[in-house]
């Protein structure tokens, strides 16, 4: 198995007023293809910053990040957007759906930015919504869906461009435990189908369901 995500001595510093905050302070790790990894740490540990960097939503102050064999250092905004679009599917804690679009158009949205024609976008989004068990909710807007259903739409959206990596930030954090378990099951299914899943959580019991746990504390990998 080869590493689909590799970080080499990654640092991320913020300047807040006069002080420099070391959000990440020299992280080196690699995540294998087809793995199910939990990045676990308490709030303030730097795990969200780490997720942003892996997801190419942010760039490191120093160090190298390699996504699917591609070194992201020095890439411009357009190239980073392309990586986010093609290689990474995001699932956020609070779903992050666009309220004015229905489930189908929400799930199809990433394909708009891949330049896929409307008809194909809808076909593909339909397929993904069926995959997550929402075939009867496609024309509903987020406000008409339950929390679990919203998160399924978000997962369908993350899958729609067929990325290698699913990056989930506390995906069950806003759900009740039953629904949370259903969503976790869905992630396991997707993993068994060969998708690499990276899970960011502070919840130890959720993390223990994952194949591997990377504990983060004070901006470092805790050993």
């Amino acid at each position, binding site marked *: 198995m080869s590493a689909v995500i590799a970080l080499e001595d990654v640092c991320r510093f913020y300047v807040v007023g006069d002080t420099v905050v070391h959000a990440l302070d020299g992280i080196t790790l690699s995540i294998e293809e087809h793995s199910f990894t939990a990045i676990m740490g308490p709030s303030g540990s730097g795990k969200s910053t780490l997720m942003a960097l892996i997801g190419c939503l942010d760039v490191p102050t120093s160090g190298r990040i390699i996504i699917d064999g591609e070194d992201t250092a020095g890439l411009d905004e357009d190239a980073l957007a392309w990586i986010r679009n093609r290689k990474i599917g995001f699932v956020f804690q609070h779903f992050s759906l666009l309220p004015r679009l229905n489930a189908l158009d929400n799930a199809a949205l990433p394909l708009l930015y891949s330049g896929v024609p*409307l008809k194909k976008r809808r076909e593909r989004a339909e397929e993904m919504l069926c995959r997550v068990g929402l075939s009867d909710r496609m024309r509903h807007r987020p406000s008409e869906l339950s929390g679990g259903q919203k998160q399924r739409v978000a997962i369908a959206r993350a899958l729609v461009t067929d990325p290698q990596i699913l990056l989930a930030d506390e995906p069950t954090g806003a759900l009740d435990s039953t629904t949370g378990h259903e969503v976790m099951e869905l992630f396991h299914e997707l993993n068994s189908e060969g998708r690499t899943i990276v899970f960011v959580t502070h919840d130890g019991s959720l993390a223990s369901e994952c194949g591997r746990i990377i504990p983060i504390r004070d901006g470092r990998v805790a050993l």
Partner: protein
Amino acid sequence: MMLRENVRMAFSSMAGNRLRTFLSLLGIIIGVASVVAILNLGRSASESISASFEAGGLDTVSIMPRGSARETMIFTEEFSYSLMREIDGIREVLPVVSSVANVRNGQEIEEGTQVQGVTSGFFQSNSLSLSSGSFFTALDNINRRQVVVLGSVIAEELFPAGDAAGRYITIFRRNQARSFLIAGVLEDRDASMGTTYNEAVFMPYNTYVQRFRRTDQVGTYVVKVAEGSDAIAVAEDIEVYLNEIAGSDYYRIFSPATIKEMADAVTGTFSSFLAAIAAISLVVGGIGIMNIMLVSVIERTGEIGIRKALGAAPRMIRSQFLVESVALSLSGGLIGLLLGSLLSVAAVSAAGWTLHVSPAAVVTALAFSLAIGVFFGWYPAAKASRLEPMEALQRE
């Protein structure tokens, strides 16, 4: 493809907040409506002024002697011939004399009626036509016959039964009463250039001179310009000639063509001036658009973050917001165009003109609103495109 999607998103976003959309469009709507109304009104006004000048005869130059000094003694009938001789481009010179008299038929008396002595060519030259009877002839003029042609209104007032032609009227002047045969009655004709045909009584020039006048002075010379000649140039030549022989104090010259030129210039300047003021309101409208777009970018920071996370490149975000601002301003422009057109129709019909749509107004309205959308939308759109994805997401 992206454009269609952007347009769809723009209208869905506008529809999502109707009142706010409408309020932010008000500036553009009012601006465009006033530009359209002003340009349309300006054009309609100048077209109807032109029409009234054309009715008054753009091929006519009138010369009116004034004062009683020795110089005015040159304005006799002979002057008609010297004008023809001296100035190129004149078809004919029609001397007109006039005064005010009381006119009677039985019990019906019209006081203060204008009585004009004209040659028989006068009617044709002014494109006057008859509703009954006939014009008097050149022979009537030579023989100084006591015949008249009546304007439509005075005929109606003296002969309510409408049977004026062939009857007689009495004209009083200087304590003398004379009887005139009515040869014909003119068709109704709108007053133009200070000449009212409907209330006047016309008789042969020589008859007038013999019966009513004591001096040789002619009241007005109506100069008809030859076909193919420029009335304005002829008027200028006449002016030069008159200044030589009489001096500028002793006549007034009056040419519809010259006045039309001035009037056109005035309406043109006036409407460009008003349009410039209206353009200021377009700029204000543009600032309104920019304001609402900036608010929208701030409000939708989270949405922008999501879109960026899903792979939207900066230029895609920029074009989304740019399309939205253009959609806003073009909608405002279209509503303004509609409103301005309605205003023009209302104002034109109130003024009694005919509506002449100015193509420039339509083009200006749409081009301006497009330009405003791009110009004032650019900064907010650029701002949206530059947001850091992670920061934007955190503000969701």
